[in-house]
Structure formats: C-alpha cells, structure tokens
C-alpha cells in the first residue's frame, strides 16, 4: 500500500484528476473518431459493393439471366455482416432479385424509388441504412444494399472496446506511477522531519539515513544542515552531532 504524504495529497489528487480529464478527453476524441470512421467506412464499403454489383452484372441483366444475377448477389451477401440484404430493382422499380427470407418486407415492396443513403426500419428485422447505386445510370435499374445498424454498432463497440482497454490500463499505470513519484519526492522531507524531531528531542541522530540526508546537495540537505546548525547554536555542548 502506497502511503500518500499530507503535503502532496492535493498534488496527487490533482495529478489523478488531470490524468482522468486527459484520458476522458482522449477517449472521447478517439471513440468519436472510431464511430465516425467506421460508419463512413461501412457505408463506403456498401457503396462499393453496390457499385461492383451494378457495374459487373450489366450483361447479365441485359440477357435477363436472373438466376446468375441471384447467384452473384448471394456471393456478395456474406460481405454485409450477419443481417445484411441485397435487392435489385429493374427500371420500373420492380424487385427482380433479392435475398430476403421469408419475404420482401412491406416497407421495401411498397416504397418509392430511393437513391444515395437512407435509413430504414424493417419490421421484425431491425434498423438499417440502405445504400443504392444505379445500373447503367439508372436505365437498367438499381442495386440496393441494406446494412443492419446493429451490426455497425457492434463493430463500433468492438473497436471502441479495443481502444478503451489500453486507455484504462494506461490511466491506472499513470496513477500508480504518479503515486510512486510523489512518494519518492516526499521521502527526503519525511527524513528531514524525522531528523528535526530527533534534534528537538535531543535524541541520537547518529543514523546512516541522517548521514545521507546531511550530505545531500538539494534543499533537503541544506535544511538538514541548517537544523544541525541551529541545534549546535542552541546547545554547543551537544554530543553526537558531527557538524557538516
């Protein structure tokens, strides 16, 4: 157990508080960045997948080969996480291939054409953001990708967890190191106090630690020597004091 000297109590509380504020601020900045970057990255990936499907299946669509088209989107599906969906609409906004089971959600089958990124809530399936990309500038239809926001949240939480642990451990190490350093700084003062009390009580000061204190080149050494001087001035006959 590390004992905190009264002199440095407020100092150590201040250091801990400072570390806390720094750690908290750091965590906020980092986690916000993670949230922003991962959300953006997931959306960009979804857009890239939608674009890849749209660009690479033009011939298949023109050949009306819907089974190959279905096969292609089935291959892409694992890239969308555990609860992602893909659907493709033709130029009349009719769904011609999709990955929904057991049926196309009403929110989608009854919706107007969409573009860009929108947010959707599908009954019984959850909250999604939907990314769309046109096929042949829209005249061939659109590819739509649905990403489960829970999946994104889990991804973000996972990444945040990875960041929070190192931050928490760093914070704890910093506190322990702060306490140790403060104690290290406080030790000569405690020795000085011990020496001064011994001088005042006219007890023996012939101890190795006092010897070390008296030869120190810092303020603690100066004060010890000053106390020794005062002790000799007060009692020139006092024995056991080897003036430095």
């Amino acid at each position, binding site marked *: 157990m590390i004992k905190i000297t009264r002199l440095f109590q407020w100092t150590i509380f201040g250091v801990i508080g400072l570390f806390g504020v720094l750690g908290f601020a750091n965590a906020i900045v980092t986690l916000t960045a993670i949230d922003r970057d991962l959300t953006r990255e997931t959306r960009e990936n979804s857009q890239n997948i939608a674009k890849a499907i749209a660009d690479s299946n033009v*011939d298949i669509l023109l*050949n*009306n*080969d*819907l*089974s*190959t*088209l*279905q*096969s292609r989107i*089935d*291959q892409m599906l694992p890239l969308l996480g555990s609860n992602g969906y893909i659907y493709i609409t033709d130029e009349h906004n009719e769904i*011609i*291939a999709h*990955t*929904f*089971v*057991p*049926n*196309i959600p009403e929110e989608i089958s009854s919706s107007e054409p969409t573009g860009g990124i929108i947010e959707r809530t599908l009954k019984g399936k959850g909250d999604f953001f939907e990314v769309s990309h046109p096929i042949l500038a829209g005249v061939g239809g659109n590819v739509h990708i649905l990403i489960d926001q829970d999946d994104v949240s889990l991804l973000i939480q996972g990444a945040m967890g990875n960041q929070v642990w190192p931050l928490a451990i760093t914070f704890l190490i910093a506190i322990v190191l702060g306490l140790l350093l403060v104690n290290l700084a406080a030790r000569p003062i405690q020795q000085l106090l011990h020496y001064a009390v011994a001088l005042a009580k006219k007890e023996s000061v012939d101890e190795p630690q006092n010897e070390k204190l008296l030869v120190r080149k810092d303020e603690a050494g100066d004060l010890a020597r000053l106390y020794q001087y005062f002790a000799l001035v007060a009692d020139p006959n006092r024995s056991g004091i080897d003036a430095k």
Partner: protein
Amino acid sequence: MKTKKTDRFSNPTRRTIVKGLAASPLVLALGANKLGAQELSQMSSNTQSSNSEFVNGVSDSQIVLGTSAAFTGPSRGLGIELYRGAMAYFQDVNSKGGVHGREITLKLYDDGYQPDPAVNNTTKLMRDDKVFALFGYVGTPTVTRVLPLLKKFQDENFLLFFPFTGAQPQRQLPYGPFAFNLRASYRQETGGLVENFVRVGREKVGVFYQADAYGRSGWAGCREALAKHNLKMVGEATYTRGTQYTASLKDQVEWFMRDKPDAIVCIGAYAACAAFLRDAVDGGLQVPIANLSFVGSENLLKLITDTHDNPEQYSQFLVNSQVVPSYNDLSLEGVQLYDEFMTKNAPSAPSEVTSDDEEYKTFDRSFVSLEGFLNAKLMTEIFTRLGPEPTREGVEEAVFTIQDLDLGIGETVSFNEDRRQGLDRVYYTIVENGSFVPLNDWTAASNGWTEAAS
C-alpha cells in the same frame, strides 16, 4: 444407411481409387485384413486391366466422367437417385464390355448442394483427376457457380453434360456453349404450369421459392409466363436453401394467406417443399401446390407419407411437373428398359460419398433415377459416336451428329449449334393411391382441388 451393398460396377469411384493404390503390394497386404477375399480378388483383376495411362480421362480400358452432386444433406436424395439411374445403364454397358472396349466410370464428389464445395470439387475433377467430361451435376446454385470454370478451362475442351437443373445460365450465353442439357428448362416447366392454371381459371398464382439461383430461375419463369396473360404474381415467399422437413414454414404460409392465391408454384427441393405443403394444408391454405421436376417427387411424397396417418389430406393438393414420362408407363420402350435395368442391376447409393449418419432408403423407381438413366443412355450414345479414339476436342462434333435420336420415351433428341437441349416436353402428375400418375384433365383436377378445399 439403408442401402444395398454396391456390386461390382456400381462403385466405380472406389474402384478407380483402388486401382491406383492396389498397384502396391503393401497396400494389398495392409488391406487384406479389412476386405473380403472376393473383394480383394476383384480389385486385383481390375488392377491388371488398368495398367494403361489415362490421357484426359481416357485409358485403354476406361473413360472417366466427373460428378459433383448432393450426396449428403437435405437434398441428398436427388444426387443419389440421379446417380443410381445413370449407373443402372452404365453397369449394363460395362458388363457388355463398355464402349469401344472402355468401361464408363464416374469419379464422384459430394457437394451437399452447396456452391463453394461444387466449385472446389470441379476444380479437382478438372485439374487433378483430369476427367474426360463433367456429367450428372445436381442443382442450379451449384452449376451456376461451376460454369465459369468451364470457360476458364475452355482450352482443354471440358464440357458439362446433362446437369439436373432446368435453369437458364447453361442454356444461354455466355456459358451455353460449354454445356449440353437433356431435360426441359424450368422456363418450360413453370410456363406449362402457369399456362394450365390460368386455363382452368386459377389466375392468382403465388410463388414459393428457394432463396438462391434455382428459386430465382423458377420465379423468373413464372413471372414471364404470367406476363403473357397480363398477370402478376399474387404473393411470393422464400426459404433458405438446406431447410429441413422439420422446419416450420408457417411464416411463409401466413404471407400467402393474406394474398389468397388460387394456386402456388414451388421452386424448391423436397424437404422444404414437403414442409411447406404440410404447413399450408394445416394452415388452411388449401389450393393446388405445384412443384417442379427438381423437387424429387418421390422423396417429397415419402416425407409426407411417413409422417402422417392420412397423407392424402396433403397429397391431394400436389401437382408436380416432370421432364421425363412416368416410370410406370411401360408402353414406352425406354421406360421398359429402365424398369428392366433397375431390377437387374439394382444400383445402390454411392457409399464412398454418402454419409453413414444420414439414413436414406433408395427408391425402386423414381422420376429422378429415370432421368439419370436417360442421361447415361444418351452419354453412351455420344461415346459410341466418338469412335475408338475419343478426345474432348471431338465431343461437340459427335453430339451434333445426334439427330432425331429415339431414347424410347416418345420424343426424339436432336442437337446442333443452336440447340443444346435434347428434350422439351413437360409432363404433369398428381398423386393417386400413394403414387404419381399423369395428370391429363386439368379441369377435373381443378374441380377436385376446389372440392377438397371445401
């Protein structure tokens, strides 16, 4: 596995593997503890006849075809029955000395009706096993993914023969030139079903389909057929490939209950389609429920029959399209031959690719095995026309010499550059007295469905 022990010719894969291994006396000695003397003797005799080297799947004594199909999982009945039908014919050919002195053997892999294993298996068949051609694949999601491999290896002239799927990708560009089909397409099957339903006044057609390339292919066929009558689908629902019979499909049934279709076309495999039929009838959705040939009619009916005291309650709503005639129609020469060979050769399930953990009882006769039988018959004809020095390069030309070939089913087969599908006819069947019989009168059948529902 409740299957009969494979006989001499029904287990070519193990035999082929053993031929390679058996050259080593050590292997023979090690194996002697486990194998019977008769089996060992058989292997040895095979080894003696297989010393010649294979070039592109052909040796002096054998032609090897490669197959990746569902031999395990919920759709294993399709792969097993298709294989059994083909082996019934190949065994007979081989027992008579093969084609131009070469036995026809199959190198088998199980893909469980899953695309990724099918792609891996096909790569092995092409690169490692170097088979002569691909034969008897099962399923649209698998075949659709395999087709690009044929294009990739087009310099080696691999072709895919008679896959058990009616989907479009292997019937049209860009992959059409790499495959030959015997069966009618799903477009033809769904077109025929929709046409007949509409003709008898059942214009509100719903579609229940597997959420993959197969389902989409059938869905597209229904949509196209309905569009010809200015109609649209009335309800659609999907299920995940690999769904077992034990699964509940009540959500899908509920979805249809809202739309109240007059008929439902199912694009699926037997386990899920049987589950849907069960839940539909139980849930009050009592309309004709049609299935395509791929479903595996006997497997579907067996699931319903085995699990209900009164299976007619469910089967009376079944109407299945087929791409081969009834196996009970012994007036057809080809069916007679099938009947005879299935009895004589009694092909068993391929034990080397099936799983001991999955019980499967083979069918004496089935539409799927009849299709496998016809596939093998036509494949043998192609090998005969290829002559004594078969090469992959010459296969296409040999196939194109087939004009008005009679397979003995009342419909001739022809191939040319623009026609790579042999048969076009679709047959319709309903269940009577526990088995599938031809459906000849749709009006009467429709009245029967209405009566049953009321």
